[in-house]
């Protein structure tokens, strides 16, 4: 196994360890919050997921730019891995947000601007992954998904701003944002946990992408002659 793959697996393991530690701290040891009660504990996994989802998609965006400037395959590998990871984290974020919203607001979805933007991002970047699946030419696939990734990423702040504005006309915003300083440690540990986890997974996933493309672009294996030894059928006389 390559050194880089071994390192990726180590990152994943370390990330999982941090997540277990941080979650245990947040669930078992930290006290309940004044107004939210124990539901606040969801924040110890929700906020770290939010940071890392944004980070993963920013990483994908950087890879897209690097690919368009360098045309090096390694950036397309990382782009594919980064987008996939970003979509998974964003999807997770939406699910966590929904689970948090039910006891807090009484509904499964409350059109919170950050969560709504995340939902749009799931569709936007998921769509680019779908695009990749339908393009056979590796070069076109790489160029087009880089272009699409850049456009989608540039769009994210516009989406956020427009949803925030649109929503603010309907309800007075009072989403609890601050996490009291006593609770910082589980948050930080989980944030680094997910960070190492996704960096490790992106490393492995990029390798998968590289191996797949090598298989795609490899010259065809020479055909063996049929066992009968007869010449292959060609057109011609009846």
């Amino acid at each position: 196994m390559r050194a880089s793959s071994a390192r990726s697996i180590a990152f994943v393991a370390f990330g999982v360890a941090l997540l277990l530690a941080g979650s245990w701290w947040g669930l078992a040891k930290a006290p309940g919050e004044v107004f939210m009660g124990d539901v606040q504990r969801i924040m110890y996994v929700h906020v770290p997921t939010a940071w890392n989802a944004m980070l993963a998609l920013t990483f994908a965006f950087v890879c897209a730019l690097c690919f368009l400037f360098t045309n090096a395959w390694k950036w397309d590998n990382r782009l594919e891995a980064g987008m996939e990871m970003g979509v998974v984290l964003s999807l997770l974020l939406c699910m966590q947000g929904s689970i948090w919203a039910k006891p807090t607001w009484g509904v499964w979805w409350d059109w919170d601007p950050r969560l709504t933007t995340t939902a749009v991002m799931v569709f936007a970047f998921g769509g680019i992954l779908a695009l990749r699946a339908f393009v056979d030419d590796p070069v076109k696939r790489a160029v087009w998904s880089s272009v699409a990734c850049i456009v989608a990423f540039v769009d994210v702040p516009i989406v956020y701003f427009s949803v925030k504005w649109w929503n603010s006309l309907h309800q007075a915003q009072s989403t609890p944002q601050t996490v009291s300083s006593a609770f910082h440690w589980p948050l930080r540990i989980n944030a680094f946990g997910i960070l190492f986890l996704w960096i490790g997974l992106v490393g492995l996933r990029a390798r998968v992408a590289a191996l797949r493309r090598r298989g795609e672009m490899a010259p065809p294996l020479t055909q063996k002659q049929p066992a009968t030894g007869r010449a292959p059928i060609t057109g011609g006389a009846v």
Partner: protein
Amino acid sequence: MNALFAAFRKDLLLQWRGRTQMVAIFAFGAAALLLFSFAIGPDSSALREHAAGFLWLGLLLASTLSLAESFECEMEEQALEGLLLLPASTRALYYGKAIANWAQLALLGMALVPVMVVLYDAGTLRLLSLLAVILLGTAGLSAPGTLYAAMTSQTRARQTLLPLLLFPLVVPVLLAAVKATSLVILGDPMEQYRPWITLLGAFAVIHWSIGGLLFGRVVED
């Protein structure tokens, strides 16, 4: 500049020659508006309240047809490669096509307004304000739409990929255009129209810029 005008003229000519298809797309949009009213029911006040949303949803759905169609002829007989061999920059090609698409979508939007007025009792006298929303909203649809249509028309699942890629991207256009149109139809006591128009304008400026920058890479060989 000459190249841009030439490209625009070419696309406009293509649209003119294919105008029966434009009528069909209009019919599709009008049918969509009719179906939306069935979803709500014959409640006049509810229909009027949501008329702006229906108009823009109908326009958005119809836009996937017209944007996809705008690249159909480039796919035949490898016309796209022929275009690229000309001494015109890809930027001129992009803007020529995007402007032509914009004109077509704006026309479609204006044609759907009377349908909306009749079906939802959603008339207004502020026609210039309405026109501004339609022009800026369709501009926001046309720029990324042209870019993505160029990509998806060369793929296998072209009909599903274009809406799949475009719709999440143009969420701000949908939000702002629906809000602004709603204010025009239902009244705007707190003067909220201007900020939404500004948002539409900003969206259009951003996407027309990056579209022009990126189109070259999308169509290169």
